[in-house]
């Protein structure tokens, strides 16, 4: 909160710097006889230049303090204790400092660690001092930068060029965020996965057939080691996302696209496309609720009617069906694009030879558009296997290796959520396995996407 106030204050001061710089440049313009060219840059650029000089160092300092400040304070607090009673760095220290912070903010009425009440006032004092120091330094930097900028305002100073160069840097930095995010994802997944693979061998993870991540609380419990064979999860993911969902989405999506592009009146097309888009815009948690509350009981009834007495209430079929419906608009819009990209001459040629529309579609249009359609289906598969809420709410947690659609299977995303939403130690194999699963999921979708995009691109080039 205090940091927020500091940020606001720095911003306000920078605003003042802007006004000062612009005012001085304005006076220069008047002194130069108010004639075009008397001052190289317009006053706003002088103001902006001064504001940037004032703001940048102060903001960097505050941001740096926001990131490392807590660590510095903790170090100082621990250093006030006698060396013998200092907690070892790591979990002990983190737990102790959390209690100290809780006491200071009043969130925690009572501490478990007897050291915490002793440290709390010291922590408050040190934090207060250092925060004040950081704030004062930031203001000093701001003033220095601003004064330097103010002193540089001259009629021949090229403020506009400077500001524009700074804006270009800002644009570049914004673009680089995408790279940083990608690297952040890859690195955080890989680091945690490596920690996991130190405990469980990658071979067991990728080829093992048993999945039961429950590690016991006590070492002497039966089955305390847990099993991390992820094949049942991969199978469940593929079974729900790539088999059942696609069995729904491909025929329905493809036929919808064919009907809309080849048969439908423009007015119907105009109405139906938004309806399909609406299917894609419904939040997945809504689909999940629908799958769990409405579709799953129906599927179970069907299974009981078919003679399966112990049919599961969270069957793969229910989750897969609803996921398939969610994917329909995706398949249909990709197929729509692919069919529209087929040159009209091919269609007209076929029709002119006397083929009916369905023959044209089946024997000319779809074969010609096939690469585009396949690319779209692959993209749809990658979306389906990464989909989380439907399977979290409607699929089960039991890792079964079965092809029975009425049985319960579990998926990669379901397990990631199940493993990471309890109150868990972050170092256990159980929680770390979620990151290994995430890495596999990331790789699977990445390969699917790159391949699908390449197929679609090559296909587009063939007709352009």
């Amino acid at each position, binding site marked *: 909160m205090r940091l927020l106030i500091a940020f606001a204050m720095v911003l306000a001061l920078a605003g003042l710097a802007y006004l000062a710089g612009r005012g001085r440049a304005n006076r220069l313009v008047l002194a130069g006889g108010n004639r075009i060219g008397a001052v190289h840059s317009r006053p706003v650029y002088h103001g902006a230049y001064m504001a940037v000089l004032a703001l940048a160092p102060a903001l960097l300092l505050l941001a740096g303090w926001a990131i490392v400040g807590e660590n510095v304070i903790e170090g100082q607090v621990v250093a006030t204790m006698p060396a013998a009673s200092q907690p070892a760095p790591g979990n002990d220290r983190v737990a102790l400092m959390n209690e100290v912070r809780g006491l200071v903010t009043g969130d925690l009425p009572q501490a478990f660690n007897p050291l915490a009440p002793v440290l709390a006032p010291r922590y408050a004092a040190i934090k207060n001092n250092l925060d004040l120091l950081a704030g004062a330094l930031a203001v000093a930097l701001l003033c220095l930068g601003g004064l330097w900028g103010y002193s540089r305002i001259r009629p021949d100073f090229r403020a506009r060029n400077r500001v524009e160069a700074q804006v270009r840097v800002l644009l570049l930095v914004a673009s680089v965020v995408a790279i940083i995010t990608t690297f952040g994802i890859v690195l955080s997944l890989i680091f945690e996965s490596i920690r996991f693979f130190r405990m469980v061998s990658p071979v067991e993870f990728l080829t093992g057939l048993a999945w039961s991540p429950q590690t016991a609380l006590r070492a002497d419990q039966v089955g305390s080691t847990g099993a991390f064979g992820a094949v049942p999860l991969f199978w469940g993911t593929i079974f729900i996302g790539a088999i059942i969902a696609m069995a729904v989405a491909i025929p329905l999506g493809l036929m919808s696209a064919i009907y809309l592009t*080849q048969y439908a009146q423009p007015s119907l097309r105009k109405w139906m496309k938004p309806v399909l888009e609406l299917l894609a815009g419904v939040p997945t*948690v809504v689909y999940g609720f629908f799958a769990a*509350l409405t579709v799953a009981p129906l599927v179970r009834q069907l299974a009981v009617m078919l003679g399966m007495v112990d049919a599961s209430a969270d069957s793969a079929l229910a989750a897969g069906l609803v996921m398939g419906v969610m994917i329909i*608009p995706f398949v249909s819009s990709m197929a729509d694009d692919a069919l529209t990209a087929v040159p009209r001459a091919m269609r007209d040629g076929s029709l002119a030879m006397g083929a009916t529309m369905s023959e044209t579609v089946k024997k000319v249009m779809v074969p010609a558009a096939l690469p585009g359609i396949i690319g779209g289906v692959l993209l749809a598969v990658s979306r389906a296997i990464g989909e989380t809420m439907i399977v*979290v709410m409607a699929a089960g947690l039991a890792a079964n290796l079965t092809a029975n659609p009425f049985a319960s299977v579990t998926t990669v995303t379901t397990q990631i959520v199940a493993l990471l939403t309890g109150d868990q130690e972050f170092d256990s194999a159980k929680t770390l396995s979620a990151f290994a699963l995430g890495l596999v999921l990331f790789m699977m979708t990445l390969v699917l996407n790159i391949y699908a995009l390449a197929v679609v691109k090559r296909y587009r080039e063939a007709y352009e």
Partner: protein
Amino acid sequence: MTALQPSRLLSERLPTDWESPAMRARIAARYRAERNFRRLGAAALVIAASFLAFLLFTIVRDGWSGFLRSEARVVVTFTPATLGLDPAAVAGPQGKVLLARADYLALMNEAALTLGPASGTLSDAAWLELRERLVADPALLGKTVPVWVPVRSTIDLLAKGKFDLAAPADSRGVSDREVAAWRWLEREGRLRTNFNMAFLRNADSTEPELAGIGGAALGSLLTLVITIGVAFPLGVFSAVWLEEFAPKGRLADIIELSINNLAAVPSIIFGLLGLAFFLNFAGMPRSAPLVGGITLALMIMPVIVIAARVAIKAVPPSIRDAALGIGASPIQVVFQHVLPLALPGIMTGTIIGVARALGETAPLLLIGMRAFVTDVPQGFTSPATVLPMQVFLWSDDVQRGFVEKTSAAILVLLVILIAMNSLAIYLRNRFERRW
């Protein structure tokens, strides 16, 4: 070379006899196939549309009653003694404070006894109504007035007809005593249905009749403020750089590749990033709109970049050339001419991205925004929950009263999403320019 034998030459072949029965049958079969194919296409559309209709129907059917609540009429005597109030002090300067702190629970318990067989049917928070009445009108002290207070969820569901009373008592989910109490209230005319303001105003609660979406809606708002604040400038700036300033080369290629890949990364992976980086590495607070907002911003940034690039590309080069020709610098061209013209397209993309962020649950699940938050969130760093997460949490609850709450929350979410998407479509149609 049999193909060149005179008898096979086209000119000597007999013309096809279209009238022959065999030929007619073939044509009929082809037309039949054509009709069937066409019907198949129409059927696919109808199935997709009717699924959507079925989904909306079940949610409206289950959810509309969530906006209503049943209230019971209780005759309350605001006895100062029960309330622990001194009438003389109430008239004094500290009156308001005293009134707000009085023992309404005791008063409520006393008043509930007048309901006879239905004395246990009132909600645990019914006393809040009494406080509201008395604070609003201190003159009521010592008087006897009828007050409408909310009833327990079971009675509420009975009044809405959600239980199958013909079923045997042990499987219908409601006890004979509760049914009797409800019948008594109905017979006495002490039950009414009213609009449930508490549902829109309150935060989460363990009691269905008290739970509301107000806290989650505010949490969504705080999260989206962060999301827009981070994703919009980043997305627009990187689109400008890629379209207008990027030199052709490896850097631009890598950025483009990253953005295209990020657009296709499953949302839950962003949750893993948020957990590993923002929470565990950077030590940011769990369950906070700040972290949720940044995570969602990274997720929707590619959507904004892609939409903004299309919009910027659509601005004709002649505009740039004209501005450059009269002496504007490249930066001035972009910020004073290109961006204002591209803004409608950028806004459309942004709204669609933000709508996606509003409906997203999975990444927030991993960064702990599933906390049970009974208070309206206080700021960007305090624990909060969001609308779709509230739907998820309630759908997990075993209490029957939460089914209609879940559907009602979904209705609110869908109405907001449809409004946002309509706004995007409107902006696109209203401001889109064909050059």
